């Protein structure tokens, strides 16, 4: 099926919009402009809608359909300011997106909101999709949270997927403490023939012991 070519040049849409932007727009108009065909109009709508009550909901509604990288960036910047715990499930659903920018944006948002992430980590740990659990581990590796090492221990000890465990060990190699030594033997025995897991376990042991000396 062929797509109809736009009759009106994009430049004209932007010029018209610049004129319109000089007059105040209602929230409804701004929300409608979030779905404009013109990326400039969408970016301005994000800027002008930012901080308003319904902004986050509208931004999160728009994100899965947005394909302009600069608009996606603008949406995530706006969400950084205004996001609350209420929006967590919508942000976390982006971890399942095929779009890398959306996944990475969601990961960064969660890293910047450690308490929101902490409230949802148990749910993520139980997600059926191992890739989502790997992204959860990625967030844990970068989030500044007192429970981070403990969460990684839980992944290493309990997750059945060797790639999830491998990623948890990757992160432990960066933030492990003495308590990690206690779990390594168990993890080692869970994956006795997995060369990468065995490699990282030896690395963590030498790092923690080295740091302890």
């Amino acid at each position, binding site marked *: 099926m062929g797509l109809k070519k736009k009759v009106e040049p994009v430049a004209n849409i932007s010029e018209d919009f610049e004129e319109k932007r000089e007059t105040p727009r209602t929230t409804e108009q701004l929300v409608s402009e979030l779905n404009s065909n013109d990326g400039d109009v969408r970016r301005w709508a994000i800027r002008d809608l930012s901080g308003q009550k319904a902004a986050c909901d509208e931004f999160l509604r728009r994100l899965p359909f947005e394909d302009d990288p600069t608009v996606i960036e603008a949406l995530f910047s706006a969400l950084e300011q205004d996001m609350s715990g209420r929006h967590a499930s919508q942000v976390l659903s982006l971890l399942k997106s095929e779009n*890398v920018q959306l996944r990475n944006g969601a990961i960064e948002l969660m890293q910047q909101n450690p308490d929101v992430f902490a409230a949802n980590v148990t749910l993520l740990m139980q997600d059926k999709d191992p*890739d989502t659990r*790997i992204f959860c581990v990625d967030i844990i590796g970068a989030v500044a949270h007192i429970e981070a090492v403990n969460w990684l221990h839980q992944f290493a000890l309990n997750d059945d997927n060797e*790639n999830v465990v491998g990623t948890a060990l990757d992160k432990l190699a*960066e933030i492990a403490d003495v308590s990690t030594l206690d779990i390594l033997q168990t993890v080692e025995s869970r994956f006795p023939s997995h060369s*990468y*897991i065995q*490699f990282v376990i030896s690395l963590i042991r030498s790092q923690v012991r080295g740091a302890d000396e």
Partner: protein
Amino acid sequence: MKTVMIVDDASTVRMFHKMLVSTPDRIIEEAENGVEALEKAIGTQVDLFLVDVNMPKMDGYRLCKEIRRNEALRAVPIIMVSTESANRDAERAYQCGANYYMTKPVDADMLKLVVSAVIGGGSNE
């Protein structure tokens, strides 16, 4: 001497792959993501890219496409390594220009064999 560039955001994975593919006749370069890999590769003689799929800034699929678009790099073989085992992910890797697709955990012997088949050498002795 042949140069292998290992691209992965996990330093432990880079260390592991480096340990597997290092030989006296190979130079190993490392990058944390696609952007860094391209920056390092331009102006360097790279003979093989060993690329992870999920990385921040620029993922493996996009890196593959960029390598294939770059006149100086387009002929360099790419091995993609991913945790994603679904056929569609392998298909996507090949569509983006990868020559080989391996799923994690990589079989250490298989990785050594594939690298040797692509760039020659491979004696760890």
